């Protein structure tokens, strides 16, 4: 039944519902608005460290989040604001983590995109690229041990992260263990400044699937309908016992690597190519074309999201940061085994 390495077309699921599309569009809008706000806060000096946005990658990201259910597990990467929201992360978690509020899930200990709530299935990324894939494998192994069925684990990575040993070991492990893993590669054609020509030499990253004995899917990452269709199908296949699914989407990041970066290295040809279209604009066009909403309706939707983001930011800006004197400086869960190492 299972055909390792078979590559599915990014067919637009004809039965795709208006509702789904609009719901996805709303999350994309929210993610975009949130990103813009975070960028503004960064420029205003309110955010310590970096800010990493998902501009241009919302369609793919939201499709991951929407393909998952409660009980699934998701390890997002730096450009997954939309997917996080769609999977259930609240705006407050994002804002609190970026601003370092002590009320956020990371309590000021970790920042920006390194946030998550493992007990709710969102794993906080390790900076080391590729390193979340085996962790999701492990969560899926645990769920199998515990007899939880019908679960899926999704991991998001970039084209650059496919060059890591972690990617290889983990995808192979998932294949050997036939885990319900959906590994999504957002090929945005650059890893920081490095073009794919310096990153890999295969025609398409989806050609890697056959070498692992897993199913490969490719899709147009600018096209929301294609993303929703592909991710749904991949998640369903994983859920129903088909083993790991490798999804490769082609797109472009429409922002810097982080907000400190002007992305001057991105080739004008790519920007002018179909890859360079803004997935949010493309989705909006589709909505207008299908008559699912009109300009005013979309403007109202956007305003709703702006309101939500502004409210969250206003709240968090009033929240305290962590207090170093109240901080318990123990890394261990077993407090009695911690050492104090005080100088004096």
């Amino acid at each position, binding site marked *: 039944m299972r055909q390792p390495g078979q590559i599915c077309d990014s067919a637009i699921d004809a039965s795709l519902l208006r509702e789904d599309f609009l719901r996805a569009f709303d999350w994309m809008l929210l993610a975009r608005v949130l990103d813009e706000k975070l960028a503004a806060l960064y420029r205003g000096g309110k955010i310590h460290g970096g800010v990493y946005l998902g501009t241009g990658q919302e369609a793919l990201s939201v499709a991951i989040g929407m393909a998952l259910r409660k009980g699934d597990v998701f390890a997002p990467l730096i450009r997954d604001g939309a997917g996080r929201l769609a999977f259930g992360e609240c705006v407050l978690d994002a804002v609190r983590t970026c601003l370092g509020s002590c009320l956020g899930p990371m309590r000021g200990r970790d920042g920006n995109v390194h946030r998550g709530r493992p007990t709710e299935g969102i*794993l906080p990324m390790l900076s080391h690229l590729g390193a979340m894939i085996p962790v999701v*494998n492990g969560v899926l192994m645990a769920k199998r041990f515990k007899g939880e069925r019908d679960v899926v684990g999704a991991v998001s990575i970039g084209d650059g992260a496919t060059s890591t040993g972690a990617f290889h070991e983990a995808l192979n*492990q998932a294949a050997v263990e036939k885990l319900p893993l959906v590994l999504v590669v957002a090929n945005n054609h650059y890893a920081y400044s490095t073009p794919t020509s310096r990153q890999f030499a295969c025609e398409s990253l989806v050609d890697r699937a056959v070498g692992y004995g897993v199913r490969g899917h490719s899709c147009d990452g600018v096209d929301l309908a294609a993303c929703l269709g592909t991710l749904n199908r991949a998640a369903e296949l994983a859920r129903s016992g088909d083993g790991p699914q490798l999804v490769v989407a082609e797109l472009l990041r429409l922002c810097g690597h982080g907000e400190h970066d002007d992305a001057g290295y991105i080739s004008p040809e790519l920007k002018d190519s179909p890859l360079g279209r803004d997935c949010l604009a493309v989705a909006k066009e589709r909505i207008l074309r299908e008559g699912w909403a009109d300009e005013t309706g979309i403007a109202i939707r956007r305003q709703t999201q702006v309101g939500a983001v502004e409210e969250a930011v206003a709240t968090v800006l009033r929240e305290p940061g962590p207090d170093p004197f109240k901080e318990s400086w123990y890394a261990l*869960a077993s407090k009695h085994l911690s050492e104090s190492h005080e100088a004096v």
Partner: protein
Amino acid sequence: MSVTYLEAIREAQARALAEDSRVYIYGQDVGGFGGAFKATKNLAKEFPGRVNDAPISEDAIVGSAVGAAIEGMRPIVEMQFADFSTIGFNQIVNQAAAFHWRTRVPCPIVVRLPCGGVTGAGPFHSQSLEAIYAHYPGLVVMTPATVEDAYSMLLEAVAIDDPVIFCEHKLLYYHLKAEGLPTEALPVGKARIARPGRDMTLVAYSAMVHEALDVAREFATEGTEIEVVDLRSVKPIDTDTVVASVARTGRLLVVGEAWPWGGVTAEVVARVAGEAFHLLDAPPMRLNSKDTPIPFHPDLWSAHRPTARSIASAARHLLRL
């Protein structure tokens, strides 16, 4: 019935598997084959589906253990040799070690490292890496020296909520024997006075405890009483017990099989010098392996690591004998 150090490790795992359904074992050749050293002998048969062969992918092995642990399991990972844990290094020191601190979700994995030199093993099958792991916050590093500790500490390693680096010494696997498995044990974090003495404190851990005891026995015949402290775990270090011993003896020699720069001997000496300076009647001393990779040839190997002979010579120096 006598039990070896290796059998104790096997028995502890068997008991953990039997008593706690969250426990599973994962590592290369740990399944039907029972592991390169036979530490999981028959366990795959006794606990079907819970003792599984892994691909040669230490990063994924540890990474998946982290994932399973945060999802409620209690994985025991066997590295085929401690030396190969460098491949799983990132997942150990950055993922596992920091997870609880970042998220409040505990990450109870045990990574079993067959450590230390044996004759003819060479630079990449002989390493003692406790210092590397102890340096990172968020890990507990255990270094059992006895059959009893191998058993009880491994059970405790599985029980506690933190990632544990469990350093087993390969030299002890087959030769070190005890009458039976222990029924009680010191808690992890407590050092053990392996032999009392009033003239000098000799701190050791893992296989070096036995070299230290040899020296103490030898010196006893000459009327010098060396107190041997077995650290048992090197993170945390039970500084109190060490300092209390130094308070009795006034002299300190710390021995470790690892490389000389940094590590357990430096940490113990620095703590005692800092916290108990005035208890010291003589400069504290350290003895480590030489600062080269671990040689293959037995004659080089025994000159590379501390032995009863080189410990005795350092002890004589410290005691001005």
